[in-house]
């Protein structure tokens, strides 16, 4: 028999700020945290905006000298600490082995950029090796083990924009199947010029406002941040006497096998991930769809098609929104951050708006949430789709005894 998996802690940092209260307050009020980019010179690009994490200090790290670490580690350690504190893990878990399941697209790319710039300036033999110590994409997970002295193992998924959704899905299956009682899962990514230039070269960035599902949508806006969830087997959480924030009940994934950067346009393969998650969860009625909704022409029409296939006529009725116009696309971190906002919509019984939406697109005939709305949200599906054709859907619901 499959075990029940509950969420006992969350940690989040985005352009909205740090912490769940700040992120929820700004998300539900429809506040945009998209501003002109300051971490590099964006004046040479047509698109100049992004969702950067500002006023963030990494000085709270305990055991590691924070200056040596990449910003990616800073964000990840910060949010993990918040989630652990929320779930009272350090105090009450003791020697229980934990699974750390993390997703990222870039890892410590900022360190890699700095190193390469030094190579070009000073030469191969004179660039500082210390700059690359935190470049590789699994180093941040190892840093978590160093910082928090976990017992257990880690796994790092790099599946582009579904990375953290996959990491959460893996953690969910691992706890449900009894491989671990506790999993620390989620993901992160930082704002780097490398990735900004890459998306710019693909003409995927909007120089205007990001407006998912709008007829006049013309691209995405990048963001940065991290999100961590503590998934725990129900009985284990009960024994620890910690609060339960919600329950994860379903996960589905699929791969387009279609194109490196374009989604399969009919949405048939993506719908498989959605349907799989629904079946996995026992086909509950869905109250809210937290869409991947990047604001690109191809993604949003594909996602609409996938939702139509998976939900049939109900696809027109279920409220849908994307939070990316407010905080940007966090790439490897987006699935985790959006799962957390989905969970908060259940906790607060309200739906965050899809800001900047003005003109309905007949190709995207969905029930887009234009303004925040109070609603008795019990079950939410959160979608993630990524480069290389990876698709993942997560289903969260309110926690009830006996169900």
């Amino acid at each position, binding site marked *: 028999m499959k075990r029940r998996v509950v969420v006992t802690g969350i940690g989040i940092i985005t352009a909205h700020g740090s912490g769940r209260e700040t992120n929820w307050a700004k998300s539900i009020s429809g506040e945009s945290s998209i501003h002109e980019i300051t971490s590099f010179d964006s004046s040479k690009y047509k698109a100049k905006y992004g969702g950067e994490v500002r006023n963030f200090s990494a000085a709270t790290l305990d055991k590691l000298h924070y200056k040596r670490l990449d910003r990616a580690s800073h964000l990840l350690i910060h949010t993990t600490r918040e989630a652990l504190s929320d779930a009272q893990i350090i105090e009450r878990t003791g020697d229980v082995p934990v699974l750390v399941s993390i997703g990222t697209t870039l*890892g410590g790319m900022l360190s890699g950029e700095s190193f390469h710039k030094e190579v*070009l300036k000073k030469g191969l033999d004179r660039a500082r090796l210390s700059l690359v110590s935190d470049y590789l994409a699994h180093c941040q997970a190892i840093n978590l083990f160093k910082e928090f002295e976990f017992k257990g193992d880690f796994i790092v998924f790099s599946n582009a924009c579904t990375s953290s959704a996959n990491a959460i899905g893996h953690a969910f299956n691992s706890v449900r199947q009894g491989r671990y009682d506790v999993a620390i899962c989620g993901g992160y990514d930082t704002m780097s010029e*490398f990735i900004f230039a890459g998306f710019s*070269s*693909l003409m995927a960035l909007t120089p205007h406002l990001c407006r998912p599902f709008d007829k006049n949508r013309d691209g995405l806006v990048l963001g940065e941040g991290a999100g961590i969830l503590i998934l725990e087997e129900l009985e284990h959480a009960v024994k620890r006497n910690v609060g339960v924030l919600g329950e994860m009940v379903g996960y589905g994934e699929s791969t387009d096998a279609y194109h490196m950067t374009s989604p399969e346009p009919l949405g048939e393969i993506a719908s498989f991930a959605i349907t799989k998650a629904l079946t996995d969860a026992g086909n509950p009625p869905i109250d809210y769809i937290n869409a991947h909704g990047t604001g690109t022409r191809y993604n949003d029409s594909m996602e609409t098609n996938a939702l139509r296939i998976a939900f049939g006529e109900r696809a027109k009725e279920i409220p849908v929104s994307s939070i990316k116009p407010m905080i940007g696309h966090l790439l490897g971190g987006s699935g985790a951050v959006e799962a957390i906002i989905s969970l908060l919509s259940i906790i607060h019984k309200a739906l965050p708006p899809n800001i900047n939406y003005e003109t309905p697109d007949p190709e995207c005939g969905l029930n887009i949430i234009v303004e925040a709305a109070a609603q008795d949200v019990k079950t939410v599906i959160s979608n993630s789709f990524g480069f290389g054709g990876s698709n993942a859907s997560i289903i969260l619901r309110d926690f009830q005894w006996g169900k």
Partner: protein
Amino acid sequence: MGKIVLTGIGPVTPIGTGKEQFWNAAENGFSGIKSLTKFPFTHVISCGEIRDLSFDDYMNDRRFRRAASISQYTLIASSLAMNDAGKKMIGGYKTALIQGITHGAMNYTQAFHGALIKEGVDSISPILFSDSTLNAPASNASIYLGINGPVHTLVGGADAAIKAIILACQLLDDGIVDRSLVVCAEELNELSLSCYERLGFTPLSEGSGAILIENEETVKGASPYCYIAGSASECNPSNPDIALDTVISTCLETASLKVQDIDFIMSDYHLPAKAFFNNIPAGSILPLTGNAFAVTVLWHIILSALVIKSSTIPRGVIQNKAMVSNQIKNVMIWTAGKEGTASAIILSKV
């Protein structure tokens, strides 16, 4: 739960491509470590390069001709493993592809970033960018093979190979897929070469390896190389040696075996300081190929599968003087890193 068996292998190595060349080189101790030729370097350096490998000789698909070397290595190894298992096309929703990787497409990453810095925004290539993402090799392979099931790129050190196999086995155990292709790949790059050389970590290597694993009951009538009897993985940065000891113990426990049941060990790491390990034949491909991180571990796994199948240990890889049994039933492969990561797997005769 039935056994998970290994039905196909595909090595792309500096000592040969395909299982026959690979085995022959391991048997005869042919070294693939030679002076670097692929790009100019500040001084003479030895590496395990893939040379004289024509993509078109193995793949008749123009879509991937401009793909990064690491993607091409991934595609060739995947194709070899599939053909070895007698499967022309294994795609669809019931197939997974799990890739273990350490650095990714470093040459495209360097070229893209270099063009951005030196020549400006207008000179950068979207193809270089999309192929530089860490999941590009696995995605390209999924496109080529038509795999619609889980396709994951796991990033790590050498342990990424065993982690990829563990995840692939879990997907089989949970009934999510019927078969999993596990691939590891790396490509040589001047920046990473320079860094590792300065750290005293040479010779480096490149290439790929792939294995196809399936549930035993779904491959009735086939003659698999071996089955996966046990596995374990752990991270303990404060004490790497304890991490390795723990995974070896856990791995034996999951396989219901004792140390004395192990007939051969393959490792990229020194033997734990326990006397009884000295009585077991130990080997490594590293002196012949160089270090390609997770790929090396997968080469060890591929070689171990051939060892079990043939009950013969290739002379060129043996590293100690322990007596070799004439029946090789269980082979343990382990890896460990200075950062406290350790993983182990046991392959056993079916």
